[in-house]
């Protein structure tokens, strides 16, 4: 169901009735038919947004004020003050749950404030007692204490703050004993609120926002929590990750909604294109081609091998399983991006056996060129200007990169760049004219 189109139609109805094109009875029937889709309420969204911004500013301001150090006060008084921001926020949250439980603006604002005050409270105690080390432990404690706010206050802002926190924790603990594979369990918890928000029939802004955050966090987290041991493993890992995002979206959600409504698809596809561009360079394959993966057994750190293998295997095999189902359904968009991990494995094998980066880099040059042309052609055929431009951009980036790699003359490079620019402009002009022609026919 294209909700944006439905909202447009509902907004057009009064005008159509006024012009006599539709009767009032028809308008009522149409509204009843599309009753499940709420029109966007800009004023309400603004209230929520401003309440969250206000709460975050207040919370940040309190943290900075507390950081001033009140050494004139005796220590017992300072420890009491350490509790005040948190207790105040909690009291306000209790009031919101008791008196304003249906107000999203109140819940989001107070959830954000309470989340920040947990960190402020622990920090102030640390400052009072000169506690130094282990920023990672401080972060983890803060995030675990803040996590329940997502569920109790049914709010997305603490979920986003939580994502930031656990991703930072993964970065802090990358090389610590015990590792940071726990990051995946910490973020898996967020599937629960995403699922609930997507299926409770209300606005989809919260799960979509959280999914965008999750895509970004997982992209960073994969590199921080895996790829400790095997040189070049990141090539197969990230290929699998981006393919998994695209294929998950293709398998379980509707293609009819807009760009921002499909984070898995668009983040995954964008990531796949950018990553393919990176893999089109020879330098990306040097680690594999030069045999860095051949380690002396004593120097290989076994404690990292297990989490690298298990988590990496789950991501890549998940992508391959969904690829098989995508092939069966003949979903071409998913297939094009779902092939990425297969090509990455093939490229890895080519580089390892030939001891040269060129075959694998060449493979990805061909892949990116093919995908770019495909996106361009399909974009033109289906009147999707954005998709067409992404295809053009991919082809252009590839050509420009290879031009810088090679020793061609400035004149030839200049002529090709001009040709690419003309192609961009011409394609967009044709698309605009076609859309204008279609509107006139209607």
């Amino acid at each position, binding site marked *: 169901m294209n909700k944006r189109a439905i909202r447009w139609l509902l907004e057009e109805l009064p005008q159509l009735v006024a012009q006599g094109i539709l009767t009032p009875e028809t308008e009522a029937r149409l509204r009843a038919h599309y009753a499940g889709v709420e029109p966007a309420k800009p004023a309400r969204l603004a209230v929520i947004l401003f309440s969250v911004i206000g709460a975050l500013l207040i919370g940040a301001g309190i943290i900075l004020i507390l950081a001033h*150090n009140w*050494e004139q006060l005796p220590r017992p008084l300072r*420890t009491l003050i350490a509790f005040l921001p948190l207790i105040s926020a909690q009291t306000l*949250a209790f009031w919101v749950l008791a008196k304003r439980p249906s107000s999203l603006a109140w819940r989001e604002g107070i959830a954000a404030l309470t989340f920040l005050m947990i*960190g402020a409270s*622990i920090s102030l105690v640390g400052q009072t*007692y000169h506690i130094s080390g*282990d920023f990672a432990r401080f972060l983890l404690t803060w995030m675990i204490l803040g996590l*329940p706010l997502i569920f109790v206050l049914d709010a997305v802002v603490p979920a986003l703050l939580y994502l930031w926190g656990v991703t930072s924790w993964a970065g802090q603990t990358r090389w610590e004993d015990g590792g940071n594979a726990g990051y995946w369990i910490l973020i898996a918890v967020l599937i629960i609120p995403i699922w609930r928000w997507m299926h409770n029939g209300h606005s989809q802004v919260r799960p979509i926002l959280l999914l965008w955050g999750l895509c970004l966090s997982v992209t960073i987290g994969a590199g921080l929590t895996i790829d400790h041991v095997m040189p070049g493993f990141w090539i197969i890992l990230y290929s699998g990750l981006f393919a998994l995002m695209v294929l998950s979206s293709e398998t379980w959600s509707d293609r009819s909604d807009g760009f921002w409504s499909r984070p898995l698809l668009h983040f995954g596809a964008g990531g796949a294109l950018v990553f393919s561009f990176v893999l089109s360079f020879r330098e990306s394959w040097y680690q594999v081609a030069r045999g860095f993966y051949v380690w002396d057994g004593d120097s290989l750190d076994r404690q990292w091998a297990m989490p690298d293998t298990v988590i990496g295997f789950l991501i890549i095999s998940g992508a391959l399983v969904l690829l098989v189902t995508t092939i069966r359904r003949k979903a071409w968009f998913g297939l094009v991006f779902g092939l990425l991990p297969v090509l990455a494995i093939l490229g890895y094998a080519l580089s390892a056996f030939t001891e040269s980066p060129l075959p694998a880099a060449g493979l990805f040059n061909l892949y990116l060129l093919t995908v770019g042309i495909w996106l361009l052609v399909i974009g033109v055929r289906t009147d999707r200007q954005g998709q067409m431009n992404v295809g053009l951009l991919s082809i252009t980036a590839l050509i420009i990169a290879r031009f810088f790699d090679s020793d061609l003359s400035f004149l030839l490079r200049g002529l090709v760049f001009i040709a690419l620019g003309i192609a961009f402009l011409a394609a967009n002009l044709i698309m605009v004219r076609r859309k204008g022609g279609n509107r006139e026919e209607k």
Partner: protein
Amino acid sequence: MKKNNRLLFAFAIVAAAQLFVPAWMIIGHERTLATGEVFKFRTRPVDPVDYFRGRFVRIDLEPSVVRTEDPNLWTKPTKAYAVLTKDPDGYAVVSGLQSHPPRGQAAVEVMSGWTSSDDGEVMITWTNLQRYYMNEAKAPAAEAAYRKHSRDAVDSCHVTVRVRGSHAVLEQLFIDDIPIEEWLERKEDS
């Protein structure tokens, strides 16, 4: 129970858990400050800033290199416990490193660094005793004054640390046996 009452009850539990952590930190540190054994450590401070926890003077405790029977146990950066005794002047001496806190002895958590198997030496970092929080206006002055002072007179700066079992709390930073806050005030007055 209505849904709203369930939510309020759940939030009350969550709030109690959130208050418990800082309360537990305070109780543990106050017990150590009240009943812990005092150790003096020589030190040299530097001054960065931590936006979450205010302005602090960074201190590097001595000793930073200790002798052990088997330095090969500490070839990789590893969490360890420095077992403490005192010299005749009350300064801390590390009698050994252990991988777990020893019973009945004062020991402080450290992180091992490089080792020298020929000399039996291991470099350690006192991970939880590196910051002395001060008023943000005074911390840079403390560091600048301290650096100048430590060039002129070595071994005149120290901290006192209270240790209860394996729990250590930084108590006070001294220059010339004077608390640093008072030392700075005297410098400003003179």
